[in-house]
C-alpha cells in the first residue's frame, strides 16, 4: 500500500539490527503463550530456528527477571509470576456486570421483579435482582443459598448440568425432603419431579412455573450458558399471576428474548465456572 511505504520511508533508520538479543528473548517468551505448560531448550531452539546456546541465554535473562521459571522437572521452563504483574484488565468477565443492563431492561419492559442467580457449590444463590413495586414477587435474603433441588428456580439451574451430575447431586441431597420446611414450594416432591422439571427446561429452553405458596406468583426463567451448555447464571422474571400470567408472558416472550440475546451471545464465548456438586 502506498501510504505505508511512504510512512516507512519517512521514518528514521529502523534500529532492528541493534537489538537482536532483545528480539530473541521476546521471541522465546512468546512461545510460552501457547497451550503447553512448559517448554525445553531443544524444543524452543527447533521452533525458533536458534541454536541452543542462544535459547539458554534468553531463558537465563527471562528467568533473572521472573518472566520464566523452572518447571517441576527442573530442566524445562514455564511462565513466571512476573507476567501477572504487568497490569491488565483482560480477565474482567463478570456475569453480574454483564447481565445488569438486561435485568434493568427486563424490569422496565415487564414491570415485574427480575433475578440473577448462579450455582455456588450445591446451591443457587441470587446475586442480583430488581424488585418491582406494589404487589410483587419479593427477593429472598441477600446472598442466601437455596439447595439446587429446592424451588423451581433452583431446578432451572440444576437442569443445565449433565445427567451424571444431577444424579450425583440428588444422591448427595437425599432425603430430598429435608429442607421442606424452609422451601414449602417444592415440599414432598420426589427425584422424579425434579427430573420432570429438568426435561421440561431442556425441551423448551426456558421454564415457567407458579408458586402456590406466594399467592399465585408466576415466573419465567432463562439460563445463560457457555458454548458447552454449561450454566453461567439464570435470569428469572416473576410477578403476580393476575398481572404476569401465561397470556402476558406469551405476549412479552419475543421482546424478553431480544433483550437477553446479546447477553446470551457474550456468555457463550466465555467458559462457565466449574460446578462441583458431588458429596453432601
Amino acid at each position, binding site marked *: 500500500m502506498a501510504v505505508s511505504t511512504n510512512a516507512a520511508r519517512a521514518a528514521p533508520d*529502523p*534500529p*532492528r539490527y*541493534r*537489538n537482536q*538479543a*532483545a*528480539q*530473541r*528473548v*521476546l*521471541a522465546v*517468551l*512468546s512461545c*510460552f*503463550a*501457547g497451550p503447553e*505448560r512448559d517448554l525445553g531448550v531443544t524444543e524452543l531452539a527447533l521452533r525458533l530456528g536458534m541454536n541452543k546456546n542462544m535459547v539458554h541465554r*534468553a531463558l537465563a*535473562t*527471562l528467568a533473572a*527477571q*521472573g518472566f520464566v*521459571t*523452572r*518447571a*517441576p522437572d527442573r530442566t524445562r521452563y*514455564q*511462565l513466571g*509470576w*512476573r*507476567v*501477572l*504483574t*504487568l*497490569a*491488565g*484488565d*483482560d*480477565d474482567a468477565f*463478570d*456475569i*453480574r*456486570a454483564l447481565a445488569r443492563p438486561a435485568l434493568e431492561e427486563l424490569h422496565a419492559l415487564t414491570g415485574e421483579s427480575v433475578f440473577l442467580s*448462579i*450455582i*455456588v*457449590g450445591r446451591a443457587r*444463590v*441470587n*446475586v*442480583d435482582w430488581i424488585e418491582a413495586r406494589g404487589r410483587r414477587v419479593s427477593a429472598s435474603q*441477600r*446472598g442466601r*443459598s437455596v439447595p439446587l433441588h429446592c424451588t423451581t428456580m433452583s431446578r432451572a439451574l440444576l437442569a443445565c448440568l449433565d445427567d451424571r451430575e444431577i444424579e450425583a447431586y440428588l444422591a448427595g441431597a437425599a432425603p430430598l425432603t429435608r429442607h421442606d420446611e424452609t422451601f414449602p414450594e417444592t415440599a414432598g416432591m420426589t427425584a422424579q419431579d425434579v427430573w420432570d422439571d429438568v426435561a421440561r427446561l431442556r425441551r423448551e429452553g426456558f421454564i415457567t412455573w407458579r408458586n402456590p405458596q406466594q399467592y399465585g406468583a408466576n415466573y419465567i426463567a432463562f439460563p445463560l450458558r457457555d458454548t458447552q451448555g454449561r450454566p453461567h447464571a439464570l435470569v428469572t422474571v416473576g410477578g403476580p399471576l393476575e398481572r404476569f400470567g401465561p397470556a402476558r408472558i406469551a405476549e412479552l416472550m419475543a421482546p424478553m428474548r431480544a433483550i437477553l440475546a446479546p447477553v446470551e451471545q457474550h456468555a457463550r464465548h466465555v*467458559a462457565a*465456572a*466449574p460446578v*462441583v456438586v458431588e*458429596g453432601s
Partner: protein
Amino acid sequence: MMSSAGRALRILETVGAAERPLGPTEIGQALGISAGTAFRGLDALERAGYLARFQASPKFVLGKSVAALRQSLLARFPIRDVTAPYLRQLAFASGETVSLTVRLGWYGLRIATAAGTNEVTSAPPLGAVRPLAEGFAGRAILAHVPADAPDAQGLARALAEVRTRGFATEETAFARGRAAIAFPLRRDGQAIAAIAIEGPVVDLGDPVAHDDLPRWREIVHAVERLAQARPALFAGPFDHLDADDIVPE
C-alpha cells in the same frame, strides 16, 4: 551493565506498572538510560507485540502479546474458576469487592476478584504481589503457614490473634474506625490462599460483633471443604518452587 534484552524487559515492566502511556524520554528517565536506548528497546517490544502505540502517539501501552501470556498463566490457576461463584456470593452478601490472594512463597499474589455492588472502590490491580507480612490478606495466610516468614518478626501477636479469631483485619484509609477483613483458605490446616472483603465492612475495635460474620465464614468454609475434597482444583503453577526461591523484587 545490563544487556539490551534485559533492558527491554525492564522497559516492559515499567510500561506495565505505569498508570498512563509512557514515551522514550520518561522511560529513559525512569531507568537511567538515554531516550535513544529506550527507543531501541521500545522498538523491539513493539515489533514483538508486547507494546503498542497509544492512539498513534509516540507513547506506549501494553500490547496483545502480554495479554496472551497473562491468559496462558492465569489458565493454570484453576482456583480462580472454582472459587469464582463463592467470591461472587460473598461480594453480593457484603456489597464490597472480594478478592482471592494465593500464596506465592513469602508473597501474596492477588489473582481474582468479584466486584461489589458499592460504587466506591479502591482495589489494587490483579497480579499485585505483596509480602505476606504486609497487608491483611497476606497476614491471614501467614498465620497458617508452617515456618516463619523472613520478615514476620514482630508480627507474632498479630498472627496469634488471626488464628484465634479466624480472620485478619486492616483499617480502611477512607473510613476511620472501620476495617476490611480477610479469611485464610486452609487445606490440612495450612493456608493456600486468603479471601478478603476489601471494603470497610467491620468495626475495627469489635470486628467479631458483625451480624453477617457467621454467613461470611460459612461461605469461606464451603470453599475449604472443596479444597480438601478436590485438591487438584486448588493446585497452582508455582507449587513446586521452594518458598525461599521466590523472590519478587
